[in-house]
């Protein structure tokens, strides 16, 4: 090899090595200082914010423009994107010193993405997501208690059961934007076709099982079978939440208040016996996700199913005429239960990135929860029960076919015990449902297997 070639090769190697070295540099330390508050810093800032909030004036003076970094999967979803972009525009017009910057990821990736962002030194001021994300994000130290930002007076305007669902170690870590227990949606047309009163949905599991054969005998216009009752059991965390709701309906429990396994109760076992019976009779579409049930419901192949109220948006996207046949009812009461349900909320969760950021984020949350902004969203985009008590009597809510029939279930809805491993625990709960249905295991044996797996998860 000529000398020149050798020199060129060495030069290339040097450039490569230098560029590799350059890959490692980042101003992480500096960013981290701002993003991850130490306990002391957090206390100082939250104390300052609290003082500001306690002034009850809301007239915080921003010394310089503030940008709120808002992690929001909704911006990527058709139907929701317009609302969020309009909300951003409206807020920025009202508060010219504050800019909203969306940070987006798909729904299924958002929780992991937020953790990755913050872990990588990126600031996240606000997260829109499920209440079930709170324990994970709080455990990771990403969220601040909302009691440090909002006054007691403001928080007292929120439904206590909804605020309860936000609590980790007794402290709320999110502001529910709107909520819904798992409710029962049913198809009035199918009820009529089966000779049932469309205005008298079943209230108990026994009543439902009594009318189920009539609904199962129906066929759609193109000859497809009709399933009487849909309960999600697919391997996704939200299915586990829905199963928890069903267990509550049977008067059972899943976790104790201190996060221990609490399944030695009749309601828990009866729930899975019920699921097995549904499966044996072919009443429930097997291993379905909520979106599968929404598809079937939209196509007139499912008479009743459990969902959150905003799940109807998925139904409507498939069949816009579904609004004509949908009605809602309180969840079924089974065994010794009274039909209690699990409350779910779409939640606004705050990070603590300094006084100005927190104050701006607080203003944005308050803006989102005003009647002018929230009610059109709940009426036209995502049917749900507003978290602010004052908004619940608005006709748009009380007369909505998706919300009206189940509105009383809000009073009895319970929150889940918030533990950091709740999502994995929920997946194991779906495995139990699958064991007694598609895997034909005996209920007692399946519950014993579940205990072993669940205790491993809870020990995490």
């Amino acid at each position, binding site marked *: 090899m000529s000398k020149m070639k*050798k020199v060129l*090769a*060495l030069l290339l*190697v040097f450039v*490569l*090595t230098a560029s*590799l070295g350059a890959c490692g540099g980042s101003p992480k330390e500096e960013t*981290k200082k701002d993003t*991850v508050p130490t306990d002391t810093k957090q206390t100082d800032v939250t104390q300052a914010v609290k003082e500001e909030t306690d002034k009850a004036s809301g007239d915080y003076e921003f010394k310089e423009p503030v940008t709120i970094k808002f992690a929001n999967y909704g911006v990527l979803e058709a139907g929701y994107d317009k609302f969020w972009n309009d909300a951003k525009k409206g807020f920025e017009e009202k508060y010219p010193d504050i800019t909203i910057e969306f940070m987006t990821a798909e729904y299924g990736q958002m929780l*992991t993405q937020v*953790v990755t962002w*913050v*872990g990588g030194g990126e600031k996240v001021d606000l997260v829109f997501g499920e209440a079930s994300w709170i324990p*994970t994000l709080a*455990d*990771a*130290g*990403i969220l601040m208690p909302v009691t440090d930002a909002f006054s007691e007076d403001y928080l007292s305007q929120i439904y206590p059961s909804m605020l309860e669902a936000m609590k980790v170690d007794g402290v709320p870590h999110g502001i529910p934007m709107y909520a819904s227990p798992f409710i029962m949606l049913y198809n009035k047309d199918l009820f009529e076709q089966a000779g049932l009163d469309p205005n008298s949905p079943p209230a108990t599991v026994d009543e439902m099982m009594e009318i189920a054969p009539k609904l199962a005998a129906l066929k759609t216009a193109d000859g*497809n079978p009709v399933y009487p009752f849909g309960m999600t059991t*697919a*391997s*996704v*965390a939200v299915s586990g939440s829905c199963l928890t709701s069903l267990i509550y309906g049977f008067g059972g429990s899943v976790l104790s208040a201190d996060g221990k396994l609490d399944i030695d109760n009749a309601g828990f076992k009866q729930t899975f016996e019920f699921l097995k019976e549904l499966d044996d009779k*072919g009443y429930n*579409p*097997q*291993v379905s996700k909520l979106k*599968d049930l929404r598809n*079937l419901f939209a196509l007139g*192949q499912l008479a009743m199913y459990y969902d959150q109220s905003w799940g109807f948006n998925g139904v409507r996207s498939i069949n816009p005429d579904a609004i004509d046949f949908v009605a809602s009812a309180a969840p079924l009461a089974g065994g010794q239960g009274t039909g209690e349900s699990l409350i779910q909320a779409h939640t606004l969760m705050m990070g603590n990135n300094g006084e100005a950021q927190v104050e701006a984020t607080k203003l944005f949350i308050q803006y989102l929860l005003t009647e002018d902004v929230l009610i059109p969203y709940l009426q036209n985009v995502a049917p749900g029960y507003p978290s602010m008590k004052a908004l619940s009597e608005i006709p748009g809510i009380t007369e909505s076919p998706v919300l009206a029939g189940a509105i009383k279930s809000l009073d009895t809805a319970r929150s889940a015990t918030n533990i*950091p*491993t709740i*999502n*994995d625990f929920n*997946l194991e709960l*779906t*495995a139990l449902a*699958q*064991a007694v249905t*598609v*895997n034909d*295991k005996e209920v007692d044996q399946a519950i014993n*297997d579940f205990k*072993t*797996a669940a*205790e*491993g*998860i809870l*020990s*995490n």
Partner: protein
Amino acid sequence: MQNKSITFDPNKKKGAPFMRRITKDRLFALALLTPSIIVTVMFILVPVFDSVIRSLQDYRIKNIIAGTPGKWNEFANYMKLFSNNKLLPSIETTFIFVGGVVLAQFVLGMAMALVLNSNLKGARFIRSIMMAPWIVPTIISGLIWMWIYQPQYGLLKYVVGIFSAGRVTDFAMLNNPATALLGIAIAALWKQIPLTALLLVSGLANVPEETMEAATVDGANAVNRFFHITIPYMKSIIKVTTSMSIIENFKQFPLIWTMTGGGPDNSTSTLAILSYREAFVSNNLGSGAAVTTIWMLLMIGVVILFNIIFKETKME
């Protein structure tokens, strides 16, 4: 006897420039290798070592956020994995999946390669379009196959209904713990066979025609020619192709997570799924690292075994 002793002559420096050149060449080679060494150390060895260390610690997301180190937890991550009846079924599922897919992939890929290498009409056309599944992103492949398997209105249900004259109406491959893994394996094969076939076709081109002709003249039939000439000549490409397939399927995650999430009843929960659930669903990175460490050791063991087998079956 001839005296072979070497005498040192200080004036004789013939060897020195040679040694200097050797040293220079070595240094030059080392310099050229430096970026590769750095990349290997930084992006492979350090993360692997770091992962093994984390597997021995209580290490969670909050440790990353707060920048605090994990705490040594006396092998608790490993003990938990063995006590909660999760690890061994996952290992079993992983091996069944890898074994089945790799074997089927090789057999079907080779069959396709032989067809494509023949003078069959349309072989060139097939070769040009057969890569389409390989180009499709894995998650999209998973979604496509989920729709095909969909129990109420999927294509497979329709086809089964036709072939069974309407007698089978509830065929749901992914809902049955006995068939769910097979359903995923079919999707994996659909995606991976094209590349395998293409690689094997390139290997077939290395089989000398004169040897085949000589064997034919000597009376060897097609089967004998295939096993005694084609396969030995293709040994190196088969080894590479199969190694790639083993690794690809050992670490298969997106297809399984998209199609079944590890269900039903954990029947498709492989080590990849278990690792993800431990690390990112339960948010216990230490426990996830423990699964990954076991997974890595198993994969190393399989690859070593594979190399030994290939060495032993070397044909002269």
